């Protein structure tokens, strides 16, 4: 899949950023980061992960998923229920691309992984954040309309 996501989607992507840009905070339910909030429909999050750190990335993703599943907040559980995680079987350079499908999105909910960690796993957030920061090369976000 070399260059596929990098080139084909480039024009359609909402934004691209390094995960390191968002440092963890300890505040529960701090204001949502607009980059990871979708007003309606569905969305794709594409995480370009260093091939050497896929295990770390998947471990963090698993913790986020667990935390959402176990959350007392019904919005977070709703997010978990419509969140599918895939790994591309091909690579883009040194990156393995993880495709997170949010179908449907929970309108207005924050999907920023660092915020979700800060909110739900405050005691673990720093090491998990470091793991995430070391593994993710960049993130791309794409809002979708579902036709069928």
């Amino acid at each position, binding site marked *: 899949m070399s260059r*596929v996501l990098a080139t*084909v989607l480039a024009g*359609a992507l909402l934004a691209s950023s390094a995960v390191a840009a968002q440092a963890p905070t300890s505040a529960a339910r701090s204001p949502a980061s607009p980059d990871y909030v979708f007003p309606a429909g569905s969305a794709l999050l594409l995480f370009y992960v260093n091939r050497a750190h896929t295990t770390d990335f998947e471990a963090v993703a698993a913790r986020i998923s667990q935390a959402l599943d176990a959350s007392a907040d019904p919005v977070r559980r709703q997010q978990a229920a419509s969140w599918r995680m*895939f790994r591309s079987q091909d690579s883009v350079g040194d990156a393995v691309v993880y*495709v997170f*499908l949010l179908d449907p999105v929970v309108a207005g909910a924050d999907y920023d992984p660092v915020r979700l960690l800060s909110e739900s796993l405050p005691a673990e957030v720093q090491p998990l954040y470091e793991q995430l920061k070391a593994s993710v090369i960049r993130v791309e976000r794409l809002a979708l309309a579902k*036709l*069928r």
Partner: protein
Amino acid sequence: MNVLGSGSASSRRTIVAGFLAAVLGAAVTAQAQQAPAPAPAAPAQAEPAPAPDAFKFTSDAALVVWVVKGDKTADFESAWGEVLSKLAASGKPDLKSVADSIKLFKADGPATPEGVTYFFVIDPVVKASTYNPSTLLYSSGIYERAQADEVFNKINGAINPQGGIRPIALAGVHASAAPAPAAPAPAPAAPTAPPAQ
């Protein structure tokens, strides 16, 4: 210009080879694409082995990325809407499963210079079937040849050859790491009669 390939085996191979090249990073060129052609008469010589079908997935899931010309989105959407409806209603379980496994999405927002990006999210993949558009149009039995040509031309004319069509195999990540279920409790002992008083 033929982006999808045709119903004939030879042209399907051409376009599948084109898709593979695209997936590997090469540009899809107009020269590499063939117009639909009738099936050839008896071959004069043995044909080379067919190229692998890039739309027959062995993975758990798949993504197919389509880049559609900005002024042809209505054609693309109506054609695929019809194809998927016909597959779902075909009465053949394998075709129905294929249709049921495809979710069709469109990138939100205005068209880019390349056009509008559409996605098939295929989950779960029907591994016994192909998602090759040419096969679905020409070999599934949902269309007569003339109808298939019409739908083919509609879809084919909508695709931006610069962006083309990209099938991407995906593996499911089972991140929902719920704890493994505890070992079942031992079965209750069979009831016994109370001791005689």
